[in-house]
């Protein structure tokens, strides 16, 4: 086959991406497993959090002066409205559920148990037949 002798550059590229991903993750994990990295990470996170809180505080004062709600307050209001809507949906559904939707019976058995139950009367019948004078006809399988 001629084609198998010619390497597929796109396949090679795909394999390279997978290899690079594995090596990149492994290198990064090694670098991030040090206490120094953790300390630096949290310093940056604390700095960012501090700046964010200061900004939100200032913005909150402005919004209060302008008599406008903050994003957080709107989100809380939206969540409250959603909860009321969900309750209404629930009430509407329970109203509509009268009479209740019929539910399937809880009688399902695993397939192997059903097979065994089907096989049992058949084997019992065979046993009855064999005890009723047909012993000479028993096969090795029935035994």
């Amino acid at each position, binding site marked *: *086959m*001629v*084609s*198998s002798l*010619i390497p*597929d550059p*796109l396949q090679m590229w*795909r394999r390279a*991406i*997978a290899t*690079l*991903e*594995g*090596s*990149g*993750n492994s290198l*990064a*994990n090694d670098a*991030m*497993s*040090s*206490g120094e*990295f*953790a*300390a630096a*990470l*949290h310093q940056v996170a*604390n700095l960012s*959090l501090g700046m964010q*809180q200061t900004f939100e505080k200032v913005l909150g004062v402005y919004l209060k002066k302008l008599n406008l709600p903050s994003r*957080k307050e709107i989100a*809380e209001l939206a*969540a409250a409205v*959603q*909860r009321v809507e*969900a*309750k209404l*949906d*629930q009430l509407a*559904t329970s109203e509509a559920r009268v009479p209740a*939707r019929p*539910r*399937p*019976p*809880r*009688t*399902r*058995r*695993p*397939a192997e*148990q059903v097979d065994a139950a089907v096989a049992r009367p058949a084997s019992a019948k065979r046993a009855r037949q064999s005890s009723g004078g047909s012993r000479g006809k028993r096969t090795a399988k029935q035994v």
Partner: protein
Amino acid sequence: MATSTAAAPADPSLPDRLRSEVDRAIQRHLKGLAFLGSPAPPVGLTPRTLLHRRGTLGLYHYHPTASEVYRVPILFVMATTNRAYIFDLAPGQSLVEFLLARGHDVYVMDWEAPSDAERALTLEDYTLDFIPDCVRRVQTDSGVDDVTVIGYCMGGILATIYAALHPGGPLKNLVCFTTPIDFSQMALWRTWGDERHFDVDRLVESVGNIQPDFIVGAFDLLRPAGLVAGKVRLWDNLWNDEYVKSYRMMDRWTAETLPLPGAYFRQVVKELLRRNALCEGSLRVGGKPVDLKRIKVPLLHVIAAHDHIVPPACAAPLVARAGSRDKEEVVLPGGHVSLVAGPNAIKRMWPKLDQWLERRST
């Protein structure tokens, strides 16, 4: 036994390969534009009824599709950081749809973003209030006393704690998917969560609920190169509608990560991550010790062999320490999410789960 006689796919010739790549390049450009302009595919389409809502908690009942169902209903407990539609991504890719078709009666505890007033929710609220409340509601709705509980990831921890604290029932079976128990095996997170560097009290007091950016950032840091490689693979597969659809559903699921109640996050960091209290047996919830040996019900733990979030060594102690006589640990190929919702899940995990459940659900 059937034997496969299918031959390996023939090696395409060079002109065929070139033709295929040119075709894919054209499709990439055309579908790339559509990708940018189209909304994310819909998720969670299996019909369900909301039975109960209380703040962040929602309890749903999925409409049975089989003409006859198993006696024991199933209650899924989702991790509080994520939406439960990971169990019901799309028709044909839905664990819920599969279980319904196999004759199971399915209930799901799903979560909404906790409000600011819910920042004080703790492990006690989830394991001594929300789960028992939902179990009672499932009992009432189904008319059956026994309930099987299935927990995924941190939902598995909640289900495990619930099981250990309620050895008298009404739990019939416990199933956990990739549930972390031994946090000493989470080396990176242990380092980042070290109290010498990370003041969890200060963070919780400052922000109240922990925002999703923080949580997603911590997950992404475990595999930083994966972010770039994922985008490159998406570009490479833009011609493939199925790949793009799957990618977008998973991307949407990640983007819809929920905030965590601050007090719950503080407990997880201090008790589970730092003290490794669940594994060491020193965890107390609501003043009661959480002893895994007190779990006596049949237990199945499904672990992902390539899970970078909950490595198999981190999950393994659950089956090893549980007091159940009927217990099984199954390690399947796959990652943390593909274990429950990928093509591998459809082929391997779902049939295994059904096979395990059917014998214990009558």
